[in-house]
């Protein structure tokens, strides 16, 4: 039987187990590491529970402890769950076995029989075979389930990575835009600064060229002192003052421009 889920295994047991031997309740409990599996089959249905705590019935604890097969005919002393209760005339009997394949694996199998469903010793070989094969099947399913879980976790992680990659890409794109924008800003500021400096150079150069021109005149020829005092000096003084004014103005303007451009 190729069952892919616990439910399918339980379904199959409910349908097929009754053809192998007679029983009211068949129960198998498995333990591997911290994983506990319990299969219970009755005429009414079959269940498989999978849990991380033991969940043994009282008589199972007893089997686990003494590790010998048992056959109970007086069930009243066993504190069985209500579902194990059979009519008086059935003369209920409980069979239990402890099977150990290696240190880390425990198998406990039990059968509740009665007058209408007689379990006999010749059925034990079959029961053992079923219990051991069932163990392999159930843990295979557990592994498959774990694999599925891990796959879906991997897929989730993968999706998350893709999502974050997209976010990173968009951040990088945004930063690219910001860099381009800032570069343009810097370029335009530089151009403006250059413009300002050219403008300032012209403002300064006008009075300076007057000063230079007047000085050149002095070298042109011999000048009588009174002519220098009357013609050259007053003009030199005015030009020098204008140069001073121009420089002051340029410094003021450049400072203001720098402050404005930094803002």
């Amino acid at each position, binding site marked *: 039987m190729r069952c892919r889920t616990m439910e399918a295994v339980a379904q199959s047991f409910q349908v097929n187990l009754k053809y192998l031997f007679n029983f009211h309740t068949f129960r198998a409990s498995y333990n591997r590491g911290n994983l506990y599996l319990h299969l219970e089959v009755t005429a009414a249905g079959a269940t498989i529970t999978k849990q991380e705590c033991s969940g043994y019935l009282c008589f199972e604890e007893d089997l686990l402890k003494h590790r010998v097969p048992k056959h109970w005919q007086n069930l009243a002393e066993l504190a069985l769950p209500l579902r194990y209760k059979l009519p008086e005339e059935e003369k209920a009997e409980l069979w239990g076995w402890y099977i150990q394949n290696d240190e880390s694996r425990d198998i406990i199998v039990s059968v509740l029989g009665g007058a209408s469903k007689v379990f006999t010793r010749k059925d034990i070989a079959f029961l053992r075979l079923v219990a051991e094969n069932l163990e392999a099947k159930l843990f295979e399913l557990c592994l498959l389930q774990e694999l599925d879980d891990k796959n879906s976790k991997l897929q989730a992680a993968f999706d998350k990575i893709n999502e974050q990659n997209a976010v990173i890409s968009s951040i990088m794109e945004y930063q690219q835009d910001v860099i381009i924008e800032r570069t343009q800003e810097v370029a335009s500021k530089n151009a403006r600064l250059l413009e300002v400096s050219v403008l300032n150079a012209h403002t300064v150069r006008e009075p300076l060229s007057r000063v*230079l021109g007047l000085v050149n005149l002095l070298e042109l020829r011999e000048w009588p002192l009174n002519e220098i005092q009357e013609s050259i000096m007053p003009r030199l003084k005015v030009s020098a003052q204008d140069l001073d004014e121009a420089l002051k103005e340029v410094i003021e303007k450049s400072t203001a421009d720098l402050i404005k451009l930094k803002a």
Partner: protein
Amino acid sequence: MKRIVLVDDMEIFNFIMVTSIKNVDPAFAVHDFTDPVMAFTALEELDPHVIFLDLNMPEMDGWAFLDRMQQKNLKHKVYILTSSTSELDRQRSSAYTNVARFLVKPVEEDLLEEILHENEDASGNSFQHI
């Protein structure tokens, strides 16, 4: 003798130019104007051989002066004389056919002498304009 017109709103520049020109040859007739409008009005009557023209002036700048000359079809030889070293101004001035050179203030004496003499052509002092 050669007639020269100076147009510059700064009197000091005109003073420098007059003194320098007279130093080259005291016989040159130099007419200096601080008002470009008055200079333009007197232009036809003075009929100068050479005009030294400033660019940066209030009311009418050097460019406007050149444009008016073009409009009135005046072809007097113009030397632009400016304290601006701007390459843009230099390029702009080359668009006017009557602009001979673009000079940056202050003009060295040697260069001025060369300019004043290069305008003495074979026909002597009579420098005719069409």
